[in-house]
Each structure stands twice: as C-alpha cells, then as structure tokens.
C-alpha cells in the first residue's frame, strides 16, 4: 500500500527535531516491495520485485517475494518481512498437514480460504502482509485471490499489492480489464502478452516508487508446472 501523504510527513518528522517526542516500540516495520498477479484462461503469473528495504536503507537486492506453495499455486507477500516469513512457514506447515491427513494437495481456492482464517486469527494483532495468491483452479483456469492484512479476500483476474500497488492497479485496470476505454475490442489475455505487460509495468513502477526495483521475478503457473524468470530492474 502506498504510504499516504500523512504517513510520509510523519516519517520526515523522524529526521527533523520537532521537540520532545515519545517513541513507542512498534512491532511493525515496512520493508517495501510490490507484488502483482494476473490470471488468464489457462495460466497465472505472480511477479514481484526483489528489493528489501527499510526506511532509507536497502537490506537486500535479492529477496523475492513469491513463494511456491504447491505445483499449481504461488503466494506473493509484501509488507513486513518478518510477518511474511512466519506466515509462509505456517502456511507450508498447514499444507503438509493437509496433505498427510487428506492424501492430496490443497487446491488454490482451499489455500485462499485457509489463509483468510489464518490472517483473521490474528485480528487484533494482524500480520502486516499484503498477500496475493496466483494459481490454477480445479478446472485448470487461472485464479488470483487478493487479501487484505486481516483476511478479507476475493477472487480477481488481476491484482497489484505492496508499495507501488496504487500506481500499478489503475494501469492493469486499463490494460487487462479494458476499463475506461471506449470502443475497444476485448481480446482475452495471452501468456506472452501478459508477460510483456508485467515487465513493462514493473519497469514503470521502479521508475516512480523508491521501494521497488533491483530485479523482477516472475513465476508462471501453467498446467506444465511453474516456470521462473528473473529480469533486472533499476538499481538506484
């Protein structure tokens, strides 16, 4: 989520003396990063940048935010890295438990519902993570599920989350959803077009968002499996 102007102002105040201020310990930190997922007729793509930052510092240039859950599902999490790590650990453990007791892998829809309850279990001390799940549903069609930090979710065709989400989402609305365009032919999205679009979109995000950059990692989910691709972005 883009930091609103007010938060930005507060952040600036941290670096200028404004009088005696009480500093409380905050259990949260914002580590930046952007995640994006697009669903097509028989594919889904989850993409994220790989920069891990905190305030003015960059902790790592190689910290991707996509996590492979099953052969047909990829999870992208951005926000507070500590919560991302714990959340993925918990999800992976729950997936194993499900596999052992039910003798099959969880489907994308089931993972989404489970993640919603995991997140809501911490309603009063939430995981500061913006999740997007991309994968194939039982019929082989692409599915994207987007979450808010407390577990509200729904199925979409495309969604951007993280620090540059407010910049990317309108662009996706226009290019993939054909919103706000008159007299345009609505062709379904092909895999090549989606890949190219995502690369372009992240290049734009890296230009305008300081927390996005370094490299782009794409996880392309098709019925053949999950293919990964890395593309460099601006490093400044």
């Amino acid at each position, binding site marked *: 989520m*883009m930091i609103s102007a007010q938060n930005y102002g507060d952040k600036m105040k941290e670096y200028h003396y404004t009088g005696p201020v009480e500093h409380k310990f905050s*259990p949260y930190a914002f580590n930046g990063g952007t995640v994006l997922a697009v669903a097509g007729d028989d594919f889904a793509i989850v993409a994220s940048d790989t920069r891990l930052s905190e305030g003015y510092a960059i902790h790592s240039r190689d910290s991707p935010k996509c996590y492979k859950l099953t052969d047909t599902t990829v999870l992208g999490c951005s926000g507070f890295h500590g919560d991302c790590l714990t959340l993925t650990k918990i999800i992976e453990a729950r997936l194993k*438990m499900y596999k052992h007791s039910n003798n099959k892998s969880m489907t994308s829809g089931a993972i989404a519902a489970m993640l919603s309850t*995991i997140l809501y279990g911490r*309603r009063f001390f939430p995981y500061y993570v913006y999740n997007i799940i991309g994968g194939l549903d039982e019929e082989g069609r692409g599915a994207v599920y987007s979450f*808010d930090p407390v577990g*509200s979710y729904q199925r979409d065709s495309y969604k951007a989350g993280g620090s540059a989400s407010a910049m990317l989402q309108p662009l996706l609305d226009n290019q993939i959803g054909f919103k706000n365009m008159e007299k345009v032919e609505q062709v379904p999205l092909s895999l090549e077009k989606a890949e190219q679009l995502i690369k372009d979109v992240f290049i734009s995000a890296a230009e305008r968002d300081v927390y996005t950059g370094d490299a782009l990692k794409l996880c392309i989910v098709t019925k053949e499996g999950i293919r990964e691709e890395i593309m460099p972005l601006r490093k400044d």
Partner: protein
Amino acid sequence: MALQDVCGLQEPPLFSQWTAPLSHFFMPENTSHLNGGWSHGEDCSSWMPRGGGMSPLEFYMPVAEYLTESPLRFGQTNLISSSTNLLTVDHLRPSLPSISLPTLTPCSISPGVPLPFTLSHGTTTLGFAFQGGVIAAADTRSSCKGLVACPSSPKILPIHSHLVGTTSGTSADCALWKRILARELRLYQLRHRRRLSTGGAAKLLSHMLHPFKGTELCVAATLCGWDGETGEDEVTERYANTQASEKKNINTQREASNSRSQSEVSSGATTQPITGDDKNAMSVASRDATKNYSSVVLSRVSGPRVVYVCSDGLCLQGKLFSVGSGSPYAYSILDSSVYWGMSVEEATLVAREAVYRATHMDAYSGNNVDLYHVTAKGWRRRQREDLKEEYYKEKERERKSVEERKTEETMMVK
C-alpha cells in the same frame, strides 16, 4: 501439539486446560463455571467448544469469563511464554497460537497495537421488506482511506437459502462473521431440523459479537430473510412437545379434542395463529406419535423480516434499514417511495435508485450495485449493474426531455 500450536489449528481439546497456556491460572473459576454454575446448561454447552482459546474463529461464548474481564483486554496481546508470567500478568488474550511458542521474546503491548495500515470501510447498503419479500441492495466499492481497494467487492453475502446479510464496516470482519454465522445456522438446522428464524439469527450474531465490544471490530449487518412458514412434521412435533411440557391441564380436554384434532389436521394447511385448542390438539397428537399432520402449519411470525445487527451489540427489527456512509442519501429515496404494497419491479427500481443516488453523492460508495430479492422460495440475485452507465443514461434522458420541451415551445410560439 507444537506444530498445531504454530499453525493456529485449534482442535477443541478433550480437556480444556491442556492447550490453553495460562488456563491453569484461571482453573478454579473455569471449572466451576463450565461445569456447575452455568444455569443455562445444555443449550450453551453444545455451542461452547472447550477450547481455551479466544481467537475470533473459535465460536466460544466466554460468558463467565468476560463478565470478570475488561473487554478492552481483547485488544491487548501478550506474547509471553506461559511459564514465566503467571504472577505478573493478570490479563491475557490466551488465543494467539504464538503464545505457546517459548521462542518469542516477551513483549507486552498497550491496548490496540497501532496499525500501520487502514482496513476497508465506507459503503451504502440497504434492506427493506414489503409484501413480495425482502430486497437487499448494496454498492460494491471497498475503500481504504483514499484508495479504492476493490471496485467490485460483494457486500451482500447469502447465509443460507432464505437469508442474506448485507455487510458494512470492516470487510474482513463482516466476511468472517458471516461465515461463522452461516456455520452456526447450519449446525442449528442439522440439530433441530428446521431453519432458525431471521430474528434468531440476528440474536445469535449479536451475542457472538458482544464479547468483542470495545475492540476495533466493526460489523454492521442487515439480515434480510424470509422466515419459514411451510409445515414440517418435526416442527409441529417439537413445538407441540414444548407446549405439552408447559400445559398441565391437557388431560381433561384430551378426549374431546382428539377427534377434533384429527379432522382439523387433515383439513389442510392454515396460517392462523395457534389458539389454545390447536395447541392442545397438537400436543395430544404428538403424544399419540402419529405423523399424519404434515399439513398443519405453524405460524409463528413468518414472512419477510429485516433485522439490523451491529457490533456495538445493537439488534433492531424493522421494515427498512440503510447502513453506511451513503445511508442518508439512500434513506431519502427509500422513505419517500417504499410502502408495503409495492410490486417487485417497483421495489427493485426503488432500491436501485437509492443506491445510485447514494453512490453519486458519497465518495466512499460507488461502482456497481448488487441486488438480492428474498422470497418464500429463497433468494435470487439480480445481475450486477454498473452505475456509471446509469449516470450517462440519465444525462441522456435529461437532454432529450430538454430538447423536447424546446421543440414544443417553438411549436407553440408558431
């Protein structure tokens, strides 16, 4: 056990004190309340899984405990391992799965951790009852401070075949509590072999939300449903049994009414309120364990019902409700146009118009409109409509009428 704790998978344990970390601190009160002192007995205990946890997902009516604890404690979190902190900590939220992990550093946080993000709010929803059923309508915009988080979020969630609920407030809270309500209603239906009425569902929801009063949970739902009126064998039998247990002077009338009951029963479905004779007749019939009164109809209150439930604990029944930031604008349309005898088409148009006007004036409402119509047969969903088009259509209509008026004037002048 450790793995399950990490994952937050709370199976209700056989013995409640096993998994709740600080539970043995409470043990004296716990056992007495759960076992002995609780007077409502069976009904509540069937709803109380004996988990020690109080995460929102475990539907646990912590009736005894919450009376002694301040509800503000729900906002507090204690990531303190159980062994070290019995003496110093007198308040807790024992549900967090992370509590039993000894590796977390102790850190106690003041009430309500300040969140670095906002949750979705702002909406227009409405529901009203009329002779043809209940109409529930809502916009579909989900906003987070200034950003539209989702332009097509479903705000009317069906709970069961004859009940839909509109959601307003934090969307995660609403979605989850609706799920919990649906689960509990389904369990009720399976246990008691009939659907719970709308009023009953509202009461259930408000009781479930009450322990969280004072926390930042924000749910404002309008439950719109049609209460069952078709006769069911088990229904009459059950109702009759309760009547039988209450009435003590049945015996004298038994013989006289027996023959009457059989003829009444076979005469067909009726929807009148139960009179004293009927009650006796039915209790007698149930005693006889005959099941040939399939056509006897129970009429408690049945028909369309709208009840508003809020996380403050408010539970109001009425004919018309509108909730959300756009509700004042919706009320102005609804109050002037809704009346009991309206037809289904009229009602649909009015609801649509109300949402449209509200989205026009309110910044936090917008995008599309969802409309559900609940009748005795169940709910039906109208196709989601984009209100942007409506705006242009209206402009077009206005423009045409202005033009027509102009041509009329020029004609008259001539």
